[in-house]
């Protein structure tokens, strides 16, 4: 048993930090924060230039062959610095899926442009009527010769306004069980008939509703078998990365402890105020436990297995802990904590206030806490499945 992070991963951590010091400028962070768009082309291309967009891929496929320990470090450092990596995440996920189930033409056309940082791919899964019940998608794709005609609507198509493609989940068969009538397509965003409408959120992030009206794509845009979309989705879902809430919470805690160590109230450091200190101690405990659950995920991956239960436990625990932490930290700031950044006098530049509004999405996206609990209950505890169908 050895809890030390391997030396080569720690060396990589130093490299990632140096990269972030150079490329993650205040300007990049400010722009991402103000626009709510967690993607920055300059930053993205700098990441691509380092070869990190597909860092875990084999070298012969354009990657760097990095192991799960290095990938965990990469993700953690990015999250700790609030780097705008949403586009990288979804794009790499789709590229990985194409690597396994795409046609040679799709792979040749798309993958190099992903790795070079030239293109972004967004995800079109959720719809107004289907979030957790993702297989209930209604967006229709109807065959017309060697084309498909797509009509429907997607919710939370984050980064559609920056993306070159949408990885689209459609219904191609209404006469079978819902899982068996789905097909995936890689649809160019420039295709006529696609409309993007921005959605502003509590956390300040921008997402989109996208509308598809008689969008025509060739059959060569289909990814996987006709009516075999669910199998493709399962592969794609397996590529979703380690949850970021852990890194986000660690970042917030570090910023707060720093600030509380140099801020005085009632004649002492805020850090020496017993109520504040006790709260921070508990958050540090949750941070450490969350970190260990994440390391277990990395460990299982490093053995060549899929960390399903480990992933659910990590995501559930760290996101819920993050939500709780933002509330506790905001409480510790008192009423001044309410002041938002950009106004006069927000403590810590309003980062806690912002985190309080943002954190609530982390227990919802990437598989809601309830979905994670069901996975744990079924796979770890052997309890009966509760979702009908």
């Amino acid at each position, binding site marked *: 048993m050895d809890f030390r992070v391997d030396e080569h991963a720690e060396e990589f951590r130093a490299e990632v930090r140096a990269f972030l010091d150079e490329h993650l400028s205040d300007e990049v962070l400010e722009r991402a924060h103000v626009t709510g768009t967690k993607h920055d082309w300059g930053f993205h291309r700098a990441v691509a230039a380092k070869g990190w967009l597909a860092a875990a891929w084999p070298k012969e496929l354009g990657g760097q062959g990095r192991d799960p320990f290095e990938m965990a470090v990469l993700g953690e450092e990015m999250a700790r610095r609030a780097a705008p990596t949403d586009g990288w995440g979804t794009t790499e996920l789709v590229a990985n899926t194409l690597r396994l189930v795409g046609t040679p033409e799709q792979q040749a056309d798309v993958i190099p442009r992903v790795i070079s940082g030239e293109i972004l791919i967004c995800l079109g899964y959720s719809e107004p009527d289907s979030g957790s019940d993702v297989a209930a998608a209604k967006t229709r794709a109807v065959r017309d010769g060697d084309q498909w005609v797509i009509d429907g609507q997607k919710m939370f198509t984050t980064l559609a306004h920056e993306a070159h493609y949408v990885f689209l989940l459609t219904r191609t068969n209404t006469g079978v069980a819902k899982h068996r009538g789905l097909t995936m397509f890689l649809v160019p965003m420039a295709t006529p008939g696609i409309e993007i409408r921005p959605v502003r959120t509590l956390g300040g992030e921008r997402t989109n509703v996208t509308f598809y009206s008689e969008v025509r794509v060739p059959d060569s845009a289909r990814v996987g078998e006709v009516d075999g979309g669910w199998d493709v989705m399962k592969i794609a879902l397996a590529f979703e990365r380690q949850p970021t809430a852990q890194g986000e919470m660690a970042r917030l805690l570090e910023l707060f402890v720093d600030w509380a160590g140099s801020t005085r109230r009632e004649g002492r450091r805020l*850090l020496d105020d017993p109520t504040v200190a*006790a709260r921070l*101690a508990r958050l540090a*405990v949750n941070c*450490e436990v969350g970190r260990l659950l994440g390391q277990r995920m990395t460990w299982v991956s490093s053995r060549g297995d899929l960390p399903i239960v480990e992933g659910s436990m990590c995501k559930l625990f760290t996101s819920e802990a993050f939500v709780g932490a933002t509330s506790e930290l905001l409480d510790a700031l008192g009423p001044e904590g309410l002041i938002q950044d950009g106004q006069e006098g927000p403590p810590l530049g309003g980062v806690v206030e912002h985190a309080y509004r943002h954190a609530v999405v982390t227990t919802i996206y990437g598989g809601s806490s309830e979905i994670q609990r069901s996975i744990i*209950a079924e796979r770890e505890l052997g*309890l*009966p499945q509760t979702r009908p169908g």
Partner: protein
Amino acid sequence: MDLELTDTQSALRNSFGTFFANESPPERVRRAEPLGFDLDLWRQLVGLGIPAMGVPAEYGGHGAALLEMALVAEAAGQSLAPVPLVESTVAARVIAGAPRPELSSAVLDGTKLATLVLDSDRANAIRHAVPAGAVAHLIVWLDGGQLVATEVPDSAARPSPENLAASPVCFIDSVELRNGSGWLAGAPRHVLAEGELARRAYRRAVDEWRVLSAAALAGLARGALDLGVNYVKSRHQFGVPIGSFQAVQHRLADVATEVEGARWIAYEAAWALAEDPERAPALASMAMIFNSSSAERASSVSLHFHGGYGFMLEYDIQLYFRRAKGWSLLNGDPGREHQRLARLLFGSEDG
């Protein structure tokens, strides 16, 4: 990074798991109440070499690592074994490391059971809890600049009141401990170490107690969870097992996640005591904090899902519920532990 037990460690965890499951079933746990000590079970453990197991080889022990003792403690905790495994392991390590061969050999061969006072370094303490004090022959504690082992006279009438956890804890006034009066009247004192060495050895021992207790609590939490899961699989209401209701499943999933976290923070803290001494005190504190609340939650959620039966003494979950709180509370008010952890992590302007 290596998060796998070695084959030896795995075998250790499995064999003690089996041992305690077989030798410390709920019936035996109940029979040991209210004192909470089964002398025959202790003798069985002596026969297995437990008192010497965690003592370094150079002091006459078997040299098992603290991580390995944590695995044994976890197994004991899962079966609520009514033996002071944690206290005896930690105190044996202290005594064996001091130049007192007559004490040391008696402790190593299990003739004398040793324990420690956890807060004898607290300046203004009026009264101390002595875990396992009701059955111990030797009590290790810090008397200012001296690390001391007090030998409890055989005839001592120790105040060991019946308590929530059926724990063999007893209580002593600070004055009585320091002066050797009250029920410690006439008790011989042995100085084990002096000065800075004494203080460091004592603080380390208390951290070891915290870590092994955290491991025991992780085991307890797992045992409580298992009871709950088994119950909800077999209990039917409204025509279905109650384990098929999401409210039930989801709370158990939260508990299962904490139980896993509890295991790993205990292992990390045990590992750190040997391999990462700088982080070890904070990790020991974290493990105690997290595993106390996790054990409490696991046992209370599990009890709750037993419905009315959970409230009956004849169902086993109440055994877990009472000990989850009891074993945790021996460390003191968790609020204070949070404060202590904060000082460890963030320092203090007062130094």
